[in-house]
């Protein structure tokens, strides 16, 4: 519904965005693909020729590959479970009448605005330090031996830090979704004799279904590429090397670009598998 003039103007005005994003997507992608088929060691001889699928095979067969996949899945899975479950409970609580609701909301959301390096550092030192951390104080107060969090329970510690960062996101989105629930629907179900548990199970949870899916998908995409939290806390030691971190090490630390690029291609494929589902939901939403 527009004229020739406005349509050509529209094309012109969309061009910068489209060209920039196309370049941003294609140039590095093609370069990554290119390197992934090469033996390329910038500090040790540079470009050593084509090697076919060698890098892909080596990346998958290296002893650190499967552990890194397991670590990644563990972190993503645990964080998702924790944030979604606690998020639903918190959202339902925050939806109840209370005094100072706005302030509580702000308190709960705050961690989301803390930059990842800060939260990793604060948790690592001030909370998880085995001698001076708050948790150590707490353990000693109860007469227990302080835990060396980041070396003895490294994965759990990282899950805790990351969950703390992402709980606000889940809570906020689920709270928005709960608030859009028609209260008459709940009242009707109450009239129909449904108790609290049944109301939660048959009305609230299905209503939240879409929001939960979105939380899961978006968080998955971000969680698959968490970096700073590991970089700052353990630098990949003590079994906390995720796929992202492994690739980072291959590329920048050991400067094996070919191998790292092959890993990068795996990461891209993995992210896209998740993205397809997310796009489908978002796309459906565009039609309405």
């Amino acid at each position, binding site marked *: 519904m527009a*004229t020739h003039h406005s349509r050509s103007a529209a094309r012109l005005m969309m061009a910068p965005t489209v060209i920039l994003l196309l370049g941003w997507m294609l140039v590095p992608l093609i370069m990554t693909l290119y390197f992934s088929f090469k033996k390329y060691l910038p500090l040790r001889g540079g470009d050593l020729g084509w090697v076919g699928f060698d890098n892909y095979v080596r990346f998958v067969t290296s002893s650190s590959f499967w552990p890194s996949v397991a670590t990644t899945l563990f972190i993503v899975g645990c964080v998702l479970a924790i944030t979604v479950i606690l998020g639903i409970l918190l959202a339902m609580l925050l939806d109840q009448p209370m005094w100072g609701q706005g302030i509580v909301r702000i308190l709960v959301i705050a961690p989301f605005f803390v930059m990842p390096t800060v939260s990793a550092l604060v948790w690592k030192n001030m909370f998880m330090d085995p001698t001076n951390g708050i948790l150590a104080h707490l353990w000693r107060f109860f007469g227990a031996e302080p835990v060396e969090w980041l070396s003895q329970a490294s994965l759990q510690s990282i899950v805790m830090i990351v969950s703390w960062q992402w709980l606000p996101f889940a809570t906020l989105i689920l709270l928005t979704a709960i608030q859009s629930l028609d209260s008459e629907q709940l009242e009707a179900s109450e009239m129909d004799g449904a108790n609290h548990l049944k109301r939660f199970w048959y009305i609230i949870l299905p209503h939240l279904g879409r929001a939960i899916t979105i939380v899961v998908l978006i968080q998955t995409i971000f969680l698959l590429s968490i970096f700073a939290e590991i970089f700052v806390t353990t630098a990949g030691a003590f079994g906390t090397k995720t796929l992202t971190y492994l690739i980072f090490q291959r590329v920048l630390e050991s400067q094996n670009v070919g191998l790292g690029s092959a890993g990068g291609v795996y990461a891209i494929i993995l992210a896209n598998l998740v993205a397809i589902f997310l796009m489908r939901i978002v796309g459906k939403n565009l039609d309405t």
Partner: protein
Amino acid sequence: MGQINLKKVSKSFGNVEVIPPLDLEINDGEFVVFVGPSGCGKSTLLRLIAGLEDVTSGEIAIDGQDATGLPPAKRGLAMVFQSYALYPHMSVRKNIAFPLKMAGLPVEERNRRVEEAAKVLNLTDYLDRRPGQLSGGQRQRVAIGRSIVREPEAFLFDEPLSNLDAALRMGMRLEISELHKRLETTMVYVTHDQIEAMTMADKIVVLQAGVIEQVGSPLELYKRPCNKFVASFIGSPKMNFVEGEEAAKHDAHTIGIRPEHIAVSSEEGLWAGKIGVSEHLGSDTFFHVAVEGFAESITVRADGEIGLEYGDQIYLTPKLDNLHKFDADGLRIE
């Protein structure tokens, strides 16, 4: 000068042709109303003239100059939208001055013209308010003010009164008519309301499915509708149509007679029937009469105090001078 000529103008959206090629002439100073049921293409036709949509084929000329490819800003037309489309972030003054600002007029000149328009439209006290603080009628007047300050070649109105309540609508109808008399500028007005069309227009264009059914003055359309569609669309309540034996008596497939052209009697007449629902308007009463032998009920206008009721026997006599005859295709027979 505000002469607008459409030559073989057509419009398609994708594969759907909403307006087959049509010709139309709008003369300088004329008040032309496009009327038709919703979805008949009247708004699209107006948007084609405005330049908000491209024609698929054909030519639009304004004052003899080809304007087919011109963007809306360059056509010298002003438009009043159904939703008024006021700029919510600007005061009334700035809203009205906007076209002048776009035209690059100096500030003093702008102010002078805005004040003038405000005086004409009774908006002087509201100049510093935002559109959100105005009533529907006032917003409507701001929209009109915004269109008149620029002294356009012609005004385009897209169902401007449909968001107002009935009382206001009557008032605004008069105001727009008065404005036209004073400015003597061409106005093209789109509405689905045949009463607006009848009361305001110099020339009515009746549209159905993108096709012009008839063009003429209100009285022409009333007296000599060229087909059944126009006959039933113009006039309120609607014209009665009778087919079959009764029509055959007049050598027609269908005959049409308006409710106001039927004589009513409780004693004798051409058609006998029983009164169904009646609508009392005070001055007039409309009876829906089930006439013996007719498939559909006949609506008639009677005096306000005739004193007949539901179920009473009634006799109707159509005035033959006002009888309309149509053939099997619905076209008028002279």
